[in-house]
């Protein structure tokens, strides 16, 4: 069994602050200095987010293989669920599950919408999509490699049901970015 955070208290704090920065300033890419050495195929940034935020109170879904699931279960204590729509946290290491099928919360309790961590190929700030919304002064640009081709359409549908919706964390190696449900994505040619 590989270890989790070298310092469970301060590394979790650093990981949380990175996610909070990413969520508060969508489209910025945060790097995690002290991410755990997770078993493949879990990216270090995705592992850090799970270890910082998941526990016995957060039903978890993942497509990762058994060895990786054992590592997550050991370090977080989070109960696994088989159906994506039952999960509070989801980790997609390969194909992203359709956003419409995930927990979106209710109009009275939109905070019950799921947090989906998607491992992507690369995050390149300054290029690609034009992002706007709360947390962004004018616009941020971010190119994401590895999301489904219909992602912008899925995301528009997710944003249209605000305040219900799913929030996204994108992880690539030790880097992460976040898309809160308020984010608007414009594709530019």
């Amino acid at each position, binding site marked *: 069994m590989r270890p989790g955070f070298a*310092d*469970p*208290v*301060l590394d*979790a*704090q*650093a990981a*949380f*602050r990175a*996610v*909070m920065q990413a*969520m*508060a*300033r969508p489209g910025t890419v945060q790097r995690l200095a002290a991410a755990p050495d997770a078993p493949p195929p879990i990216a270090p940034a995705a592992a850090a987010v799970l270890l*910082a*935020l*998941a*526990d016995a*109170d*957060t039903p978890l879904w993942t497509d990762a293989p058994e060895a990786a699931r054992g590592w997550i279960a050991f370090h977080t204590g989070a109960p696994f669920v088989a159906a994506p729509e039952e999960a509070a946290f989801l980790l997609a290491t390969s194909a992203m599950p359709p956003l419409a099928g995930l927990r979106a919360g*209710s*109009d*009275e*309790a*939109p*905070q019950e*919408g799921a*947090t989906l961590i998607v491992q992507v190929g690369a995050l390149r700030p300054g290029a690609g999509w034009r992002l706007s919304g*709360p*947390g*962004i*002064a004018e616009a941020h640009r971010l190119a994401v490699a590895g999301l489904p081709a219909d992602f912008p359409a899925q995301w528009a549908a997710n944003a249209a049901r*605000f*305040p219900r*919706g799913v*929030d996204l964390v994108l992880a690539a190696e030790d880097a992460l970015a976040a898309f*809160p*449900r*308020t984010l608007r994505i414009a594709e530019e040619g």
Partner: protein
Amino acid sequence: MRDPVRSPEGAGAPGAEHRRREPEGRDPHYNFAYLDEATKRMIRRAILKAIAIPGHQIPFGAREMPLPYGWGTGGIQVTASILGPSDVLKVIDQGADDTTNAVSIRRFFARTAGVATTTRTAEATVIQTRHRIPERPLREDQILVFQVPMPEPLFRLEPRLAETRRLHALADYSLAQVKLYEDIAQQGESASSYNHPVLVNGRYLMSPSPIPGFDNPKLDRNPALLLFGAGREKKIYAVPPYTPVKSLDFDDHPFAPMRAPHPCALCGSTTHYLDEIVTDDRGGRMFVCSDTDACAEAAGRAGAAR
């Protein structure tokens, strides 16, 4: 306050290697920043959802803190959950760094987290505040944590929380608009000089906590992240950076922040928000800046100019 209690075990004790990153001065009897890790995770999850749904109140399991409700238990729990060893903490109470509440909270985190503290707005990375927003414009690398006594902006108009949740779900804020209309019809202006409700990102009506109306415009498109914690009411909410925040008003009666029409008696500022201080029992009074750091800075500038 007594000195931090030292562990009798000393540096060579088992487990000491896990604490080597802890800064000098931190009391090792407490977990970093007082709260246990499970509580921090719960609060951190609430903070992330609060940022994703600007202005929406997220319920959380507020813990009992070593100070009474009304002294900033919500703000302290938010601060404890975000604070890291490299943060520099400033705490203000009605703008002042030197009140019992502000000094106690600063000492609390110096002892339990070992963080550096400051009274200078410009030096702080995390600012916990009761009822003011600092005069100095905040930066992108700063986080402002508000202590909130009553997070529900519709509380005086609709006492049933189940009903206010439904009104927020429907974005039905007619009660607040009728109240504002009646204030204006009867008195010619809004009756709330503080805690004037705001609409966040055009969707959620939010209590800005009891900041004076003077500070309301500073909420709008602020470069800093604004977090709100209500301990007794067990709610957390947030305004992300650069988010539009509009004070509730009418087109023909735009929101007008108020400021006492005097210069500060100490620094001479004509732009800072002022407190009125009664100086004797014959009607004597003086007006001084509420923000002690901004006042000292302005007084320093005025002194240097002379």
